[in-house]
Every structure is written in C-alpha cells, then in structure tokens.
C-alpha cells in the first residue's frame, strides 16, 4: 500500500465523496477503481493509435485490392478482409484487444445533412 497526499478540485472531490458515502464503499477502493479506469482508457487510446497508424500504412494497398470490403485491423495487424460485418465480428472475436478497427475500405469522407430537425450542437 502507498500513502499519497494530493490536492484536487473541491467540487469534483465533493461529488466523489458524496458518491462514496451513497454507495457505502471505502475511499481507497473507489480511488483505486478510478485509477484503473483511467489506465484502461489510456490503453484503449494507445491501441486505437496503433490500429490507425497501421491502416494509414496499408491504406493504398487495401484500396487497390479490397475496395468495398470490410477490413479488420487488430493490434496493428490486418487480421482479415471479408464481405460483411457479421464475418468481420467473427474475425475480430478471435483476438483479445481493446480496440478493433473494422472499416469498409474506401468508405471515407461521408457527408450527411440534417435539415431543420430537432438536432442541436451544445
């Protein structure tokens, strides 16, 4: 166990503390859980970047050979190319990763319009 002393934002801490009381959990357990979640999020972002960079490297070849098909990139490697999402899920499910880049080759810069519906940007 490590003892730490930190200075944190008052309002965030008050919300955190009241939630701890409401859920009747130990402060150290809640704090450890929060640290683990943050670390896990960072791992996801790292894997995302690895997959994205891998796609950029193989983009030209994929477009040349597999335009319109689904490509599955896991941990920086092309693990399969297939015709449907169902097949892509099957290929991806064989791996143990945090991020799977499943894309339709050539399907980019799509644009859509929303004409006066209730949608809004906050």
């Amino acid at each position, binding site marked *: 166990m490590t003892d730490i002393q930190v200075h944190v934002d008052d309002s965030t801490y008050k919300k955190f503390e009241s939630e701890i009381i409401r859920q009747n959990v130990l402060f150290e357990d809640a704090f450890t859980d929060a640290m683990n979640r943050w670390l896990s999020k960072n791992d*996801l972002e790292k894997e*995302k970047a690895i997959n*994205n960079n891998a*796609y950029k490297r193989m983009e030209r070849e994929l477009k040349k050979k597999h335009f319109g098909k*689904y490509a599955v990139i896991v941990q920086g490697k092309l693990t399969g190319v297939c015709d*449907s*999402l*169902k097949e*892509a*899920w099957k290929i*991806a*499910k064989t791996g143990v*990763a*945090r*991020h*799977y*880049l*499943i*894309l*339709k080759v050539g*399907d*980019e*810069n*799509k*644009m*859509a*319009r*929303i*004409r*006066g*519906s*209730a*949608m*809004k*940007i*906050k």
Partner: protein
Amino acid sequence: MSEIFEYGENQIKYPQIGVKIITLGNEYPLEGYELMRIDTGFDGPVLVPYDIFSHLCRNIELFGEMRPIIEFPDKKLLRVRAANAEIEIENKSYDAQVWTYPGCDEFLVGLEILNKLKILFNGIDNFIEVY
C-alpha cells in the same frame, strides 16, 4: 410479416420505429428494441446519444477521414464520431454506421436506412407499419 409502431400518444409525438444496434460484443438495447425517430431530413444512417455511442462503440470507433461529416441547418460542418454496426429492424439486419457528436441526445433513423425499408405511414390513425 410487418410490425406496427404507434405514435401521437404517451409522449411519442413523432413517427418512430424499433431498432436494435449490434456491435462487436455489445448490443443496444439488451432486450427488445429502441424506438428511434424517423427523420427524412437526415440523410445519414443512425444517430444515437453521445453516451450510448461511447458505451456501445468505443472499442470499434473509426478515425480520421473515415469519420463522417454532418452539415447542420445553420451550415455548420462537424466531423462526428462513428462506428460500423449491424442495424436490426423488423428481424432484418443491415450493415450501416452509427454516428454521434458531443451534445447529441436523440435517436434518429436517417434516409440511408429508410431507403432500405418499406414503410407505410398512416398519419390518420397515427401509426407506422414496417414491412
């Protein structure tokens, strides 16, 4: 086979249809379907609230130029978050994308999906029938 979705009562003001979204190892909702508003003014696929997308699609999210752009009525352009997903409507499955953006708090089914469906809009009796 067809399914009827009523509207005009119980705070369901606009025509809606039942949709299930399936992603890698996730689905929404877990049971049954979510009623999503039919929006012929949106020519994209399916738009979902930001928090739902974050939960459902964070492990398969697209990046960069694969993320689509939405043009809003005020001509503002926004590159949105997106992922590929299976969209299930009336026991049929469609490969499509799910989109969201910060502040989005509504479910919409756009023309990209609607153009694949046969829908009867009965405004007099306030129901939608999906075939």
